[in-house]
């Protein structure tokens, strides 16, 4: 038996471990192997676009020395014939944790949040760790290396996955024979980043996505400032960050929105990140393309949900079902749109899935060349290794795969993965593929034999006439053993067959040992091919559903377009001195209101009969928390540096539901965790658009402030953060605004000043360039903030909630401050015990600009009813009550020149109601923004049918997936969360 190993031993002699040239040899004579290995007759994939049929190449000392159709063969070479085989460059994974130990999680010793950094000599925030050097944390893991080699990888770029700035990674080969000296191709090969905090620290800040973005920005600014010499201390983090500046920057994200967010920060600082995506890029190809980023895509697709139980199946959202259906086509779509990407095996729980998923992507239309490039040349290029890795050329590392054929075919066997000239045998290259149908003749019986499966692990089915015979096959080295049971399964009688397999397998013959112990011979003659695959495992593809905007329930197939519309014969609430006009036409053209009057000429406009209906301007919610991925940055008592524009989630279903309630504009406010909150995002609810396109461009800058129980953390169990009382709240403002004043002075006088985003924001407030809307409840603190503002020479724009506004309406009037309040909420905490539903009416009587807001995604979809409550509580005239949710919030947001009334020249943000807009009995029938119909009752009904139809179709596909024996996952139900000012975490 031993002789069979001989060829390997010979090989090993050829490519033994190289002695390092200047290292002493202490265990024998110093010998250097300078032999060549030459591979002949192979189909060689030089790179994705270049193939040499019948080519040859030579390697020596881990590198390729020559490659081509024909090369001169050095005398001292060992030759290997690869006839019928193909050769590819080994793959490269640039996103890996290979060889790196998991970070150790910091534990709490007192259950209180930690606000300060835990380290000294580094940046003030523990989540900024550019000084981390993964080379210092690296230990070669042979078992993991072999796993990766098995699926085709030859080199990985590994890193320590912890923190927002994670420090440097390094490029290492998976050479299991060499030393670290051989394997580490490049220390500090890239810098890694993410939006996830370090688990090694409990420091609170940042608690939100907008906080993480602000922190990154400030860190970059500080890194620029630091070398200018004004720092009074050494900061090892900033020093490291500056050192890492010229490296490739790789950014890990978890979802499509975060990809865009990362790119946004990068653009601001002239950094083009390579971005680790989610696999859902197909939902926003245009925006992804605009990032100009190369993406790292995990080769992982969601499993189907187990939808067998219809009760549970009902809970799976259309979004999750569609993502399952569409994800396999993601790579195809990226390639088609010429978005550069590389593939990673990162996070794959089962590495066998790598090839399965790759083939799946190909069967869904991914071009094989694009797939190969994503595994070889593109990652090599990113790492600056395009002449060394991912390509087969002279001087490149001898990292290559030997396969039985086209790598991207399921039947193809990956025989060997050579890394740095070191051979890794994965399948015996000499083993013959037995797959096929055979007629087996033994002892007078003729059996049908069907062999399937891979050469190394064949499977067999045996039938005698129509009777299935229990059987077992083993194929080791070149010997086949086949065990057949007796037809009578109650007997323990067997026929044993053994044969040496010839190089051609049309006929197998050998020895048979019958159940009585007698020996005879057998033959098996091949009668036809059998797929080496199990039939049921064939890669069927499902119809891919079109991506909608957004890609979920109620998404648009095509974004709705601006229309010219004539509303005929409506009752029009103008919100101007014209009041409510009966039997009036309103013409909308090019996104603007162009005419109001009787019997207007429609021209080319679509005519909508509005007889008996009411037309109003769209509802504006001054205080909203819909469409936000996070609401509070609660890691600090001031978060002026964060912006809700960074946290917009355009896929929040509440956008659609708000449209169905006649809402067209909202102020997405930061929460009320801090006296100084974050900057606002004023949004037009253009359902289906991107986050950026929703921003109300002409709106001025706003910031949220907050007073009361939330900022002093009265109801949150935390007692370690200043302020804990209203007395402290005043001093927070005094402190920050005093510092902002000083900052502005320094900025003017010192060209090396340290730019501070938070201070910049506060200076804008001081200079009247940014308005404050302040969450407020009780009169004492309201009065206080007015005085603080006065002392710094600015004024508060709006008090929001302002539940005791009725107690200080006169003072607010004096300061020219507006009020945005709830209609009737009270009693949920101590500071609202005096909240009264007459608040709006009293403030209105005191001639304040009064708005009614929601702070709640349920209430926001019926703000018309909330406005109507002011008629009930306090007898506010109906037209004025209606302004509480339209014109007045527009005034408070300084956008009333665009929206909030029906006047020629204003934006066509209008709502057609089935009846009186203040009545509980009325519904929004059509909601338009800039002349685009975003909600339509009739269309809504069609969409519901569509949702049901698509879910039914996808349920069928998922059931089929389960029937095929594919893995499915249990149903998960998305939680609908009520998000308010005090929501700390969105889950």
């Amino acid at each position, binding site marked *: 038996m031993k002789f069979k190993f001989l060829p390997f031993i010979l090989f090993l002699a050829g490519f033994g471990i190289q002695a390092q040239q200047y290292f002493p040899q202490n265990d024998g004579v110093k010998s250097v192997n300078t032999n060549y290995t030459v591979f002949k007759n192979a189909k060689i994939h030089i790179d994705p676009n270049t193939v040499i049929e019948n080519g040859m190449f030579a390697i020596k000392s881990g590198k390729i020395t020559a490659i081509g159709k024909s090369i001169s063969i050095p005398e001292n070479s060992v030759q290997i014939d690869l006839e019928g085989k193909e050769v590819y460059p080994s793959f490269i994974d640039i996103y890996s944790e290979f060889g790196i130990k998991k970070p150790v999680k910091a534990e709490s010793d007192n259950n209180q949040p930690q606000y300060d950094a835990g380290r000294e000599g580094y940046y003030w925030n523990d989540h900024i760790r550019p000084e981390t050097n993964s080379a210092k944390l690296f230990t070669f893991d042979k078992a993991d290396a072999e796993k990766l080699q098995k699926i085709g990888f030859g080199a990985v770029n590994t890193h320590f996955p912890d923190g927002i700035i994670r420090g440097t990674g390094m490029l290492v080969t998976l050479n299991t024979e060499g030393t670290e000296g051989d394997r580490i191709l490049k220390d500090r090969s890239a810098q890694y980043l993410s939006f996830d905090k370090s688990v090694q620290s409990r420091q609170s800040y940042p608690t939100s996505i907008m906080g993480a973005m602000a922190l990154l920005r400030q860190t970059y600014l500080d890194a620029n400032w630091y070398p200018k010499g004004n720092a009074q201390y050494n900061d090892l983090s900033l020093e490291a960050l500056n050192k890492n500046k010229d490296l490739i920057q790789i950014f890990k994200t978890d979802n499509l929105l975060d990809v865009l967010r990362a790119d946004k920060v990068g653009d601001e600082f002239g950094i083009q990140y390579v971005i680790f995506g989610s696999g859902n890029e197909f939902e926003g190809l245009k925006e992804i393309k605009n990032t100009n980023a190369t993406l790292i895509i995990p080769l992982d697709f969601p499993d189907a949900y187990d939808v067998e139980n219809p009760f549970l199946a009902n809970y799976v959202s259309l979004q999750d079902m569609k993502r399952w259906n569409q994800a396999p086509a993601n790579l195809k779509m990226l390639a088609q749109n010429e978005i550069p990407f590389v593939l990673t095996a990162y996070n794959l729980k089962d590495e066998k899935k790598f090839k399965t998923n790759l083939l799946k992507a190909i069967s869904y239309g991914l071009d094989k060349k694009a797939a190969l490039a994503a595994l070889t040349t593109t990652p090599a290029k990113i790492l600056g290794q395009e002449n060394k890795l991912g390509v087969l050329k002279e001087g490149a590392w001898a990292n290559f795969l030997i396969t039985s054929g086209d790598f991207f075919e399921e039947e193809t066997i990956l025989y060997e993965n050579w890394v740095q000239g070191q051979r890794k045998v994965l399948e015996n290259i000499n083993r013959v593929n037995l797959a096929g149908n055979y007629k087996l003749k033994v002892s007078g019986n003729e059996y049908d034999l069907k062999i399937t499966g891979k050469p190394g692990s064949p499977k067999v089915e045996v039938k005698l006439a129509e009777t299935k015979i229990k059987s077992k096959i083993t194929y080791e080295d070149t010997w086949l053993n086949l065990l057949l049971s007796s037809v009578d399964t109650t007997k323990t009688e067997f026929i044993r067959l053994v044969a040496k397999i010839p190089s051609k397998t049309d006929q197998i013959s050998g020895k048979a040992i019958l159940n009585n112990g007698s020996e005879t011979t057998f033959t098996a003659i091949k009668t036809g091919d059998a797929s080496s695959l199990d039939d049921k495992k064939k890669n069927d593809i499902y119809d891919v559903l079109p991506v909608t905007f957004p890609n979920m329930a109620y998404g648009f197939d095509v974004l709705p377009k601006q229309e010219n519309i004539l509303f005929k014969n409506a009752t029009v609430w103008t919100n101007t001195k014209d009041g409510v006009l009966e039997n009036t036409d309103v013409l909308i053209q090019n996104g603007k209101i162009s005419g109001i009057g009787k019997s207007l000429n429609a021209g080319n406009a679509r005519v909508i009969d509005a007889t008996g209906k009411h037309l109003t301007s769209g509802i504006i919610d001054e205080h909203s928390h819909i469409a936000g991925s996070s609401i509070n940055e609660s890691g600090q008592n001031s978060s002026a540096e964060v912006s809700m524009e960074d946290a917009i989630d355009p896929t929040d279903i509440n956008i*659609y539901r708000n449209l169905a309630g006649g809402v067209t504009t909202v102020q997405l406010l930061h929460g009320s965790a801090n006296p100084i909150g974050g900057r606002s995002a004023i949004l037009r609810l253009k359902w289906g658009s991107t986050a950026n396109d929703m921003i109300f461009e002409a709106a001025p800058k706003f910031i949220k402030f907050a007073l009361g129980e939330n900022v002093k953390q009265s109801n949150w169990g935390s007692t370690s953060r200043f302020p804990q009382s209203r007395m402290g709240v005043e001093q927070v403002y005094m402190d920050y605004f005093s510092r902002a004043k000083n900052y502005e002075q320094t900025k003017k006088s010192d060209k090396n000043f340290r730019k501070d985003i938070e201070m910049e924001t506060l200076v804008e407030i001081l200079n009247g360039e940014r308005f404050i809307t302040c969450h407020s409840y009780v009169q004492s603190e309201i009065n206080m903030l007015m005085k603080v503002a006065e002392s710094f020479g600015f004024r508060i724009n709006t008090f929001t909630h302002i539940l005791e506004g009725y107690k200080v309406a006169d003072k607010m009037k004096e300061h020219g401050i507006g009020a945005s309040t709830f209609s009737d909420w009270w009693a949920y905490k101590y500071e609202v015990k005096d909240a009264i539903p007459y608040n709006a009416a009293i403030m209105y009587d005191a001639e304040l600009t009064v708005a009614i807001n929601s702070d709640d995604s349920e209430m926001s979809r019926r703000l018309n009813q909330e406005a109507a409550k002011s008629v009930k509580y306090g007898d506010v005239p109906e037209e004025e009550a209606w302004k509480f949710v339209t014109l007045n919030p527009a005034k408070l947001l300084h956008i009333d020149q665009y929206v909030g009334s029906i006047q020629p020249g204003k934006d066509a943000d209008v709502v057609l109601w089935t009846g009186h807009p203040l009545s509980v009995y009325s519904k929004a029938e059509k909601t338009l923004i800039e002349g685009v119909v975003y909600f339509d009752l009739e269309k809504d009904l069609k969409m519901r049918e569509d949702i049901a139809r698509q879910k039914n179709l996808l349920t069928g596909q998922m059931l089929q997936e389960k029937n095929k024996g594919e893995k499915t996952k249990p149903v998960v139900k998305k939680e609908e969360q009520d998000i308010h000012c005090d929501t700390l975490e969105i889950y």
Partner: protein
Amino acid sequence: MKKFKIILVIAIIAISESLYAQQTPAPKQTEAVTIVGATAHIGNGETIEYSLIIFENGKLTQVLDARTTKMAYRGKIINAEGKHIYPGFIAPNTTLGLVEVAAIRSTDDQKEIGEMLPHIRSLIAYNAESGIVESMRPNGVLIGQITPRGGTISGTSSVVQFDAWNWEDAVIKEDDGLHINWPNSFTHGKWWEGEERGMKLNKKYEEEVSKLSRFFNNSKAYLAGNQKKTHLPYKAMENVFTGKKKVFVHVDGEKEILDAIQFKKDQNLTEMVLVGAYNAHKVADKLKENNIAVLAQRPHSKPNQDDDDYDITYKMAKILQEKGVLVGLESSGQMETMNTRNLPFYAGTVAANGMDKEEALKLITSNTAKILGIDAIVGTLERGKDATLFISEGDALDMRTNKLTHAFIQGREISLDSHQTKLYKRYSDKYKSQKK
């Protein structure tokens, strides 16, 4: 710690001192009252456009069409021409009087610890002087089923009226219902430990349901025995099996609802009411078949899932009613206690979504009275029933027009003032005097 306790005590004293001074309950009706000319919304689907309503000793004695009947007016006469008269609205499944300021633990008596708590009675914790209860009345909400939260069996509710010196005076029906929080097929995933976000399958669901069955079976066994040793929880189940105490099952899922229906059969329960019941419309036929009523989730709540119709909560009651299920509206959910005063507008919202207005009115009057088993006393404007009613200037289901001028509970004319109206007056006067 001691210091903290002192502060706490001071805080509690301060809170209770400064909280609302309740309106004085009205005295027993001594003089007959005649209301003429209002549109009477009877609460059973009917209306009388120009009505004559008389009540004496707390009971309605005449409810007639004033245009066709000659009847001597009696006692105090209220001309309500152009106005509307309604039976007092009934808020089932509410925590009114059990909590005053939700964020302050010391004012919160909504739930008890433990799992099977039939012996826990809401009535004795009901604060008849609650400022929140008082704020119900100006909107026409005059009766409530005070319901404990927490546990699997959260306890026993009672029905009260909202003008009383104490809980004993307030009670309309003592210990009317047993409340079960039905187990959920889903449970929160531990996302902070790396599990997928969202709710995952609850592997203990069956076990939790069988625990309920076991508790019911054990109660039966105990009650059938000599009961020598007192077992308070089992004892508290007695009226459940006699049918005196209705079983209210708080449940949302379709499967869970079907399991609850089976539970009713298995346990031979005479009456079961579903509360919330988000998916009840999917099994409406089964509910009708098994004579199970539904207190539908408040219409002013969001759909549970992205894919659901945006107006599913608006129209749920309508779908159930069309399928023949007896349905009322309940008001639990976020900020539920103080928001209960919006009950009339919940009915209005259902009317806005396709239900006839008078049918919608039944959702908060006669239907709820039937469901709570108090329909012999309240829920409609019919002779012999309590004179618990109010007059509104306009349609009381629409916030635009819900403006009460008079309200009566058991014939007693109650105050429509509150802590809130007092503050309204106080500060309106402040600014009026400034303007002078």
